[in-house]
């Protein structure tokens, strides 16, 4: 053994004099309340957190690199795996960026279905957030109730797309296929029962004294700081900023829906919790409106060189068969240009920067994940809090590591 260097670790990381009175704690990456594989480097003075440094990258799979080697339509499948609690939102952001580059007009029915599915997905995503953030603080019961509701939504999504966690339902130019028969009844059945579930959550959690004392005044971030750190979505609205991309830069017809943008002024865990709880009711309202608007019509844009033809057409028309072959074998060319398309995902602004070079594969695809940015503000909220509250703060940010690490 080489004895020249007695303690190589000490040379790399010299001991900090502050550590005479403080200690460091590595929280994660297998900690159950870090929602995946997040590691926090905490510096503690007793139970107080004096410094928190998130360490990410454990789930990095090089998705942005992979996009450059896949055709545009193949990229949709990759997006499912980013924010795996909100795959339809990721699909939507990606396909809308490509549609913007191609200049495609999406038919009314497809837009309504997109809104409907995305809002259902938002409810499902918030259900996971609600269950797990309660679980983190020690309330196990709500978890079973929220996952029951989520299961119903996943079944609805499965009935339309065939996939539960990875639907890939939206395609460039429209949808994979039309909704199955009886779909609106399934959704109505779910919606009729959902207010009951919301009431259960309110009695279980919202009115719970322990829950309130664990969340009120914890992890405060001010309005100015929240904007400076780029927080978006419920985390920003919990600090009293009325910003919703569905209102600010409407897409897919959101400007025609009637819904409120809930905000809470305090910027603590409790505020972010209340914003999401109120959002559940708004999403439910939007789903109902979308159901009303569901009229028969085409679900794919009129662009035979981009959108796959129907099977029936392929049997009858020569050109449909040729287009199908060309799209599948060679892909379609997207004119050169660059776009940034933001949508309001369940966690905040999900932006896609897409640069095309004229070929069938993108030159660069970059995802601005809301979880990535929201997590970067964690030190601001966590420093000065107790170590047990760090768990509550992470829960209130609703992060998904699949999206952070990409």
């Amino acid at each position: 053994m080489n004895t020249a260097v007695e303690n190589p670790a000490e040379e790399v990381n010299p001991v900090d004099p502050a550590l005479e009175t403080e200690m460091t704690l590595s929280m994660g990456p297998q900690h159950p309340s870090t929602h995946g594989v997040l590691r926090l480097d905490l510096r503690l003075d007793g139970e107080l957190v004096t410094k928190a440094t998130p360490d990410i990258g454990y789930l990095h799979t090089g998705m942005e690199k992979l996009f450059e080697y896949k055709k545009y339509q193949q990229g949709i499948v990759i997006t499912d795996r980013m924010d795996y609690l909100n795959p339809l939102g990721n699909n939507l952001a990606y396909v809308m960026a490509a549609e913007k580059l191609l200049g495609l007009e999406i038919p009314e029915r497809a837009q309504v279905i997109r809104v409907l599915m995305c809002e259902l997905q938002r409810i499902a995503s918030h259900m996971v957030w609600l269950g797990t953030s309660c679980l983190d603080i020690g309330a196990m019961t709500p978890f079973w109730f929220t996952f029951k509701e989520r299961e119903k939504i996943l079944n609805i999504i499965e009935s339309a797309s065939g996939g539960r966690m990875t639907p890939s339902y939206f395609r460039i130019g429209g949808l994979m296929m039309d909704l199955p028969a009886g779909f609106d009844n399934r959704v109505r059945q779910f919606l009729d029962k959902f207010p009951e579930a919301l009431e259960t959550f309110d009695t279980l959690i919202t009115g719970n004294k322990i829950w309130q004392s664990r969340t009120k005044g914890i992890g405060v971030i001010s309005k100015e700081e929240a904007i400076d750190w780029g927080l978006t979505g419920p985390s920003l609205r919990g600090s009293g900023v009325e910003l919703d991309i569905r209102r600010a830069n409407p897409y897919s017809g959101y400007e025609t829906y009637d819904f409120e943008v809930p905000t809470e002024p305090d910027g603590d865990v409790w505020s972010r919790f209340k914003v999401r709880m109120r959002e559940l009711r708004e999403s439910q309202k939007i789903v109902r409106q979308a159901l009303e608007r569901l009229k028969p019509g085409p679900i794919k844009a009129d662009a035979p060189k981009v959108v796959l033809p129907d099977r029936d057409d392929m049997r009858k028309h020569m050109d449909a068969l040729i287009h199908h072959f060309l799209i599948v074998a060679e892909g379609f060319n997207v004119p050169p240009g660059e776009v940034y398309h933001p949508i309001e995902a369940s966690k905040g602004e999900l932006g896609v920067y897409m640069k095309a070079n004229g070929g069938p594969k993108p030159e660069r695809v970059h995802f601005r994940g809301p979880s990535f940015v929201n997590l970067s503000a964690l030190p601001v909220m966590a420093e000065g809090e107790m170590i047990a509250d760090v768990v509550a703060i992470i829960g209130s940010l609703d992060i998904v590591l699949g999206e952070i690490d990409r």
Partner: protein
Amino acid sequence: MTEKLHQFVEALRNQSPDWVSDVIDALGEVTVFVPREAIVDACRFLRDEHKFDMLADLCGCDRGPEEDPRFEVNYHLFSTIHYNRLRLKVLLSEEDPVVQTVTSVWKTANWHERETYDLLGIQFKGHPDLRRILLPSDFDGFALRKDYPLRGFEPYSLN
């Protein structure tokens, strides 16, 4: 549709003609090419005078080893007050991929710049904590560059 955005470009030009080297208006979005020396001043001016209080996104792009300038850094500015979006773009050469950090303007730039450094090797001068963020600290090379193979080099290669 983009008239409003052109007002901001004009304001930038009036403030200092050197800040705007080119403007592209395409697909409903306006891209302003800013020389790299001016990016921090231009960002601060847009934040203070024109309410672009949020940096929605910052990302780098590699145009390929044969291009010159090879790299670009995109700043997607957003305003939580008037909801407009503007893209600033800085072009960087392969030999000297260095640009001043904008962490002094928006704190959120911190992780975005670390990610861009990690994957593309673009240096941000003055960044408080420029370390790799997604890849391991001993990773060799910059994975998102076009000349980096998809399946990687040893010891991380999948071949």
